[in-house]
């Protein structure tokens, strides 16, 4: 069975290897001067696990069910679960190796740029070891959805949707709390606090005070809050009553960025003074709390997240075995 499992994944493994080699050759040939190549390589490392789930995972059982070849494979002297175990192991390890290799190449190629950028968590998803966990998870998910839906194309679409949702949910909800966060309490700095809101337009929160991010190189700042001694956050009502003038009278604007290379003009002295006075009044009762994962947490977080996704992949593989036993 080991031979059959390898024989059935040989062609796709060869194609993946050739693709990785072609991309790395192109990246090396173009050198590190072009920042868009770094972006594209990061995007590639992010999408590779999903593609492996769609194109290697989803057809693994669904393809056999569609073509009818399961009637050949499952009537030999080997149980369905052992058959599945071999196929999951061989193709799954190939998928993890493909993701690991592409991630290693991207990590190595972008290493000097990443180190200069001092934002290691900005490229967390596309560097080092986590892509291996994503690939194992996406692959097992694809196999399971293929065994459940019994058709390759719907299973591929479902794999893409579910994998993307799982990754986003983990990224937004689980990863920040995977290890206990560190808090940093700072006084509000009237010279470095702005006013506005950030976010996509329909979802943008109402404007509030925006303290400057503290200088924590390579750390991952997960939240910046303005709270009082009791721990209550600054409300917009409180802000409006303390600083009735804020938000009126205009601020800085964008000028033609091609004209002099700068994209901003400073706010007028009057507006800046109003802002300064406001933050000084607020700072009498409120301070700034920054929660973050320190730079030293990068590798613990990488291995924790890898472990979580590998464990989830094993659970999905067990579900595949349960499902395949019950087909028919």
């Amino acid at each position, binding site marked *: *069975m*080991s*031979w*059959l499992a390898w*024989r*059935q994944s040989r*062609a796709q493994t060869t194609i993946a290897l050739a693709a990785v080699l072609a991309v790395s050759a192109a990246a090396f040939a173009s050198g590190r001067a072009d920042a868009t190549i770094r972006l594209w390589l990061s995007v590639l490392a992010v999408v590779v696990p999903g593609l492996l789930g769609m194109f290697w995972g989803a057809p693994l059982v669904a393809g056999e069910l569609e*073509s*009818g*070849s*399961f*009637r*050949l*494979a*499952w*009537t*030999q*002297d*080997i149980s369905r679960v052992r058959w599945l175990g071999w196929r999951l192991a061989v193709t799954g390890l190939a998928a993890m190796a493909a993701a690991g290799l592409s991630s290693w190449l991207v990590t190595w190629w972008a290493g000097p740029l990443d180190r200069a950028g001092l934002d290691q968590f900005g490229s967390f998803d596309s560097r080092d070891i986590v892509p291996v966990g994503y690939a194992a998870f996406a692959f097992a998910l694809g196999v399971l959805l293929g065994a459940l839906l019994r058709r390759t194309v719907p299973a591929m679409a479902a794999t893409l949707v579910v994998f993307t949702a799982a990754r986003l949910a983990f990224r937004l909800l689980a990863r920040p709390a995977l290890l206990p966060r560190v808090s940093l309490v700072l006084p509000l700095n009237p010279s470095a606090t702005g006013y506005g809101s950030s976010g996509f337009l329909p979802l943008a929160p109402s404007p509030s005070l925006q303290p400057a991010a503290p200088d924590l190189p390579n750390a991952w700042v997960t939240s910046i809050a303005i709270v009082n001694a009791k721990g209550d956050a600054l409300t917009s009502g409180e802000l409006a009553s303390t600083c009735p003038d804020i938000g009126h009278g205009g601020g800085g604007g964008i000028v033609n960025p091609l004209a002099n290379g700068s994209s901003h003009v400073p706010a007028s002295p009057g507006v800046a003074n109003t802002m300064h006075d406001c933050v000084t009044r607020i700072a009498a009762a409120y301070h700034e709390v920054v929660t973050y994962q320190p730079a030293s947490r990068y590798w613990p977080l990488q291995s924790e997240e890898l472990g979580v996704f590998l464990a989830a992949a094993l659970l999905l593989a067990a579900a595949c075995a349960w499902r395949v036993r*019950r087909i*028919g």
Partner: protein
Amino acid sequence: MDNAIEANALGKRYRRRWALADCTLTVPAGQVVGLVGPNGAGKTTLLELAVGLLRPTTGTITIRQRAGFVAQGAPVYADLSVADHLRMGQGLSAHWDASLAWRRVHEAGLDPRQRAGRLSGGQRAQLALTLAVARRPELLVLDEPAANLDPLARRDFLDSVTRAVAASGENMTTVFSSHLVADLERTCGYLILLAGGQVRLAGPVDTLLAHHRARSLDDLVVSCLREAAR
């Protein structure tokens, strides 16, 4: 003598429809058994229950022996070559007969390097039969093996089955299904007639013909199906 297949109150339901209902049946070992019935009678369901591809909704089915199975349409792996299939059979079978497999491949005129997806229907059926026979099965199950073959390939294939049966001696029980009585007439000593998910007739051909005073197998099957339709 042992029975090759024993089914007891066997039933299989797909969603609402019963493909097979309350089927009690014994197939004696060493026979060549023809399973006939119109399309949708439950032939495939019965055979796939026998080889373990389907699980019964009710009742039980046991086969006492190792089975070789050729499924309807003779599915193979399109990307794998003929030689790859033999290697696969060797890896997945406990009693693989490699020399028999290669001899059959050469007799059928198959190119070992040919991808199975490029084989003609008749060649694919021959490959599937080779994979089943080289397992040295004690029970050979063929599901409509000749259904989609042209007349020449069909005759060649049925001759291959006859030769395989003859070569295996008394040790192998063969069950093959067809909706054409003519396919079975020359080879089968035992007949099972399925219609509407139920067994209408089962027994040695000679006994059945004598008992029902029928002139031919064809007449017997047709009269039984008429009765079942009423």
